[in-house]
């Protein structure tokens, strides 16, 4: 073998071993485990084919987790992206107190999600919490925000949007700052309105950034469940159970590893679909400079 080839493999070895051991191999193992029953007391698990999948099909909690996650993603992703873009546009222009404002938007990003959850848990407390107090001024009554199945998921969505918008703002800001100014001057000379300029020039030029942010937002919508663990534990009555939380619960509270593996395959399929959409479908339509 060539010397360079040996060098290359030696340099890659440590990183690749760890990558494969904790990402690729467990993904394959998950697929295998989803075809076997959960092992009990030292006996090898029997092969059950697609039984775990049919069980999942008949599991109402699984469907609810999927529905919850779909609603959660459909609300947090557009809300945090639109807010991020507005924030970036605001602090990119000459605005009084620009750097203070940028700090205000970005600060929640630096907090651990668990700290954010603790703070918001307090806001949602019936009677004493900020929300009930503010509503109290307007004659609103006591409301158990996290205890009511109708408001618990929206409450989780609000937390996620507050935490994430500032993070995505950074990427829009980076893109806006590298945008050519001569286009803006040309547009101003032609008397083009700011809204037109934004719609025709800025927004298309921001497409690669939007795609990047979108992919990250989708991944986060399925990956971050810290606030669920701390604030609601999936309740009330599974109203805030997201897919990964359901995996965590079946895997580490009920120790039903076969079902957890099957659920993980569903999650991996969703992530794979996202990747395919990113590189296959959307990627081709985005204008890269």
């Amino acid at each position: 073998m060539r010397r360079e080839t040996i060098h290359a493999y030696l340099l890659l070895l440590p990183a690749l071993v760890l990558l494969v051991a904790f990402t690729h191999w467990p993904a394959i193992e998950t697929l295998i485990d989803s075809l076997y029953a959960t092992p009990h007391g030292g006996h090898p698990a029997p092969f059950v084919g697609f039984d775990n999948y049919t069980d999942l099909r008949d599991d109402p909690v699984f469907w609810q987790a999927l529905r919850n996650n779909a609603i959660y993603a459909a609300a947090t992703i557009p809300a945090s992206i639109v807010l991020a873009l507005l924030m970036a546009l605001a602090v990119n222009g000459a605005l009084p107190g620009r750097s203070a404002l940028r700090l205000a938007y970005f600060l929640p990003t630096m907090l651990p999600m668990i700290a954010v959850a603790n703070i918001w848990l307090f806001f949602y407390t019936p009677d004493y919490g900020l929300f009930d107090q503010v509503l109290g001024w307007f004659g609103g009554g006591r409301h158990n925000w996290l205890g009511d199945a109708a408001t618990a998921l929206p409450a989780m969505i609000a937390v996620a949007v507050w935490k994430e918008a500032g993070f995505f703002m950074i990427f829009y800001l980076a893109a806006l700052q590298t945008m050519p100014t001569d286009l803006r001057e040309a547009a101003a000379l032609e008397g083009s309105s700011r809204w037109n300029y934004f719609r025709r020039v800025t927004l298309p030029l921001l497409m690669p950034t939007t795609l990047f942010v979108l992919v990250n937002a989708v991944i986060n919508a399925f990956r971050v469940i810290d606030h669920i663990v701390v604030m609601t534990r999936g309740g009330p009555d599974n109203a805030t159970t997201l897919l990964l939380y359901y995996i965590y619960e079946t895997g580490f509270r009920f120790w039903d590893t076969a079902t957890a593996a099957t659920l993980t395959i569903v999650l991996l399929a969703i992530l794979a679909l996202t990747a395919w959409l990113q590189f296959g479908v959307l990627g081709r339509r985005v204008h890269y400079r």
Partner: protein
Amino acid sequence: MMVADHNRLGRALETIGAWMLGILWLLPLLYAVWTAFHPAAYATRFDLFAPLTLKNLVTAWQAAPFARYLVNTVMLVTLILGAQFVLCTLAAFAFARLTFPGRDLLFALVLLQLMVMPDVLLVENYRTLVQLHLVDTIVGIALPYLGSAFGIFLLRQTFLTIPQPLDDAARLEGCGVLARLWRVYVPLAKPTYIAYGLVSVSYHWNNFLWPLIITNSVTTRPLTVGLSVFATTDQGIDWSIVTAATLMTSAPLLVAFLLFQRQFVQSFMRAGIR
């Protein structure tokens, strides 16, 4: 004239809107600070002349082994950062500057981890760590994150921009692979290391779910897990103390962020541009 007035009004409205959003974004944090530094009686009502106190912080600090949790977190992020720097540098150099069979395939395998992170493979990774007898150790928390696709990708992109003649010059002077890497590539990629370092430290300082699963004792728990244990079991619902503990655990990173704000923001930007 009309147009100018119209524009000025529009700008004023935009400024007001931006600031209202800013205040809305800052409010939860200000409220937490208020609660943490005032007696419990003022936790839920606002009074400009309420007495300030550090008692909540002291009580929270003494109520749980936060000093130990802090040490654990510092050890954890240091271990992860050190290992990531070394492993990712070696791999990134191979991908950027060496030619070998299977390079594109291996690189595609690495990139796969950008979509499927170890965070979602909880059950299998837990089983692996049981087999390695590393459950409830700091190494165990760190292990799944040490081979980082993100780090390899970021450093490879940087190494690709370093002029080949510099590398050739070092080679002519008789430098081996590691010497070239150390003398030419690492010094020139310093901004990327800072960027990746800040992103990695803030990610792992704040990481919660995996450490929650893999730790079950005071000597290994990082701050985030310690805080959740404290907030749910040790405390009733004394919000002043819970909030004080919450701010305390986030404080080191927040202070670092406030001091090095520009570097942090630029680092996140750099890490995001691909």
